[in-house]
């Protein structure tokens, strides 16, 4: 039994998965993670996953983008080489709005997505760490660390009770390296 690393409860329905989480938690069985083919609303609260701080990151990138955009315009148009173009002022603030705005949006989008990719270790060519290949298709998976939770039979019966179609005992953490 010690060779088993993870126990996977495979559900065909998201509501049964939620039920499974409730049942496991009521029995003090810790859940490693869940893998689903679509976002399940409310699952974070159940698993105690804290709200994402990405909006804060996005806001900071927005401030950075706006500042950089304005600095670019100020430096080029007003400081470095002010030019008399049709008698227009060297600091034409209304004319600065479009480019400052576009820079804000661009840096917000790129910065936020880069943060998302960095925090979730997403990048081109990364080996996918998948525990069950059907988790991106039609199965909703609850993964339980087999070493932390000793009573495997109880876990299986709880999962089955909640409606799991299949319970797997994986000796490897990820199946996708094969």
């Amino acid at each position, binding site marked *: 039994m010690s060779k088993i690393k993870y126990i996977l409860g495979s559900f065909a329905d998201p509501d049964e998965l939620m039920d499974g989480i409730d049942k496991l938690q009521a029995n003090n069985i810790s859940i490693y993670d*869940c893998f689903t*083919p*679509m976002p399940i609303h409310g699952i974070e609260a159940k698993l105690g*996953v804290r709200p994402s701080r*990405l909006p804060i990151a*996005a806001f900071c990138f927005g401030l950075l983008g706006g500042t950089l955009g304005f600095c670019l315009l100020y430096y080029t148009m007003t400081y470095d080489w002010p030019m008399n173009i049709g008698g227009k002022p060297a600091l034409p603030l209304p004319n600065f709005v479009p480019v400052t705005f*576009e820079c804000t949006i661009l840096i917000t989008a*790129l910065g936020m997505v880069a943060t998302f990719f960095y925090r979730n270790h997403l990048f081109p060519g990364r080996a996918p760490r998948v525990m069950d290949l059907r*988790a*991106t298709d039609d199965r909703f998976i609850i993964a339980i660390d087999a070493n932390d939770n000793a009573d495997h039979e109880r876990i299986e019966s709880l999962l089955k009770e909640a409606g799991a179609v299949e319970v797997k005992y994986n000796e490897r953490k990820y199946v996708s390296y094969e």
Partner: protein
Amino acid sequence: MSSHNESILREPLVTGKDITYAKVTDDILLPVENKPNKAWWIGFILAALGALLWVVSVGYTFWTGIGAWGLNKTVGWAWDITDFVWWVGIGHAGTLISAVLLLFRQNWRNSINRSAEAMTIFAVICAATYVVAHMGRPWLAYWIFPLPNQFGSLWVNFNSPLVWDAFAISTYFTVSLVFWYCGLLPDIASVRDRAAGLKRRIYSILSFGWNGSVKTWQRFEIVSLILAGISTPLVLSVHTIVSFDFATSVIPGWHTTIFPPYFVAGAIFSGFAMVQTLLLVMRKVLNFENYITMFHIESMNKIIMVTGSIVGIAYLTELFIAWYSGSEYEMYAFANRIAGPYWWAYWTMMTCNVISPQLFWFKKIRTSIPISWVLSIVVNIGMWFERFVIIVTSLHRDYIPSSWAMFYPTWVDVGIFVGSIGLFFTLFLLFLRFLPGIAVAEVKLLLKSASLQQKTKLVQEGHQDPEQVEFFRNSLTKYDSVTEQDIKALETK
């Protein structure tokens, strides 16, 4: 919870029997996982020939300079800018569907957003080529950006709307691409986990290692929401700035403050028409009738009707203001549009853009697939003429009558335009072949709330107001993907 019961008064967004999560994946990935059918090959060969024409025409332009076009010293902007604005406008519907409809929580966007966003990206690629081609010396295209240079540094003129446009279009393209690709990640992962061999390795690289864990999905949803939030003002700003290219000049017919909202409405109008043109064919050829339903078609037709009416009001306002301004040049510019040598372009525009979308007031027309398809093309023709009318008829009669001229396109003008349509369809067909044309994960979200199957179950369980059931049954009659059996199933109990 993923399965709150949605009111049966809302029309179903997914139809069909025995729809399971597995079936959604199978249906949508069918064109990606199998060899393309004959219809795809015919379309692809035709489109690729068009793209070839584009390469030849653009290559010829680069080789000889823009003297290859029919421009003259009076009409210095013609088909190139017309086509540019047309393509950028078409792109706008994709962002509108993916961003604005997400903010308004319109679930019907889930099955059309992916292809509409792809359309945005390809349309902006087509548009950008005109900008580069019109520069005359495309190898110096980077001069539009404020890069340090050897002229001491002589910076770009940030008072110019053309520079704003370069920033707006490149930001728009980048953000749209990022938004589209982020949304694609879970679906590419679905392809990856079902594939084998080389295909699996390629999709593995493209999937960025997506695994669908709780935290990934949570961040994914936040990222989508914020990208939607910032794309919404972005898309409005892009066509506003495109309209500034004209509105900030002092040419009668261009120098109007109505241009920004008028251009934005026109952009959404033409974009939805293009989405309609593409999706009506796509749903038929790829058998997506259960996912892109009559409800989607009707909703898009309603948007076309609303934005078409806004455009119509803008045309009339322009005429009124031209008269009310008391400026004789302004008045002449509009009199010349209506009854000058380009009267046929003006009236084509008026017929296609103002009158034809009004037909969508009739439910029969709104829910007829062939008529919708034809009208969507009519609208796109009309919107091309709108840009042609604004650009060429405002220029061709200058302040000095001795320099009045007409514009005649050369084969290169025509070649670039027809070719760009070919390029667009080539890219779109390649997209349908290699990437899921519908957002698989997002459609799965609808399965337990907004599918016909779920609603039928609700009705069969009883507890529904008979009047509402009657209403629901009547609303299903327009669906081409709902059989009489499906409707009959609602009558039990």
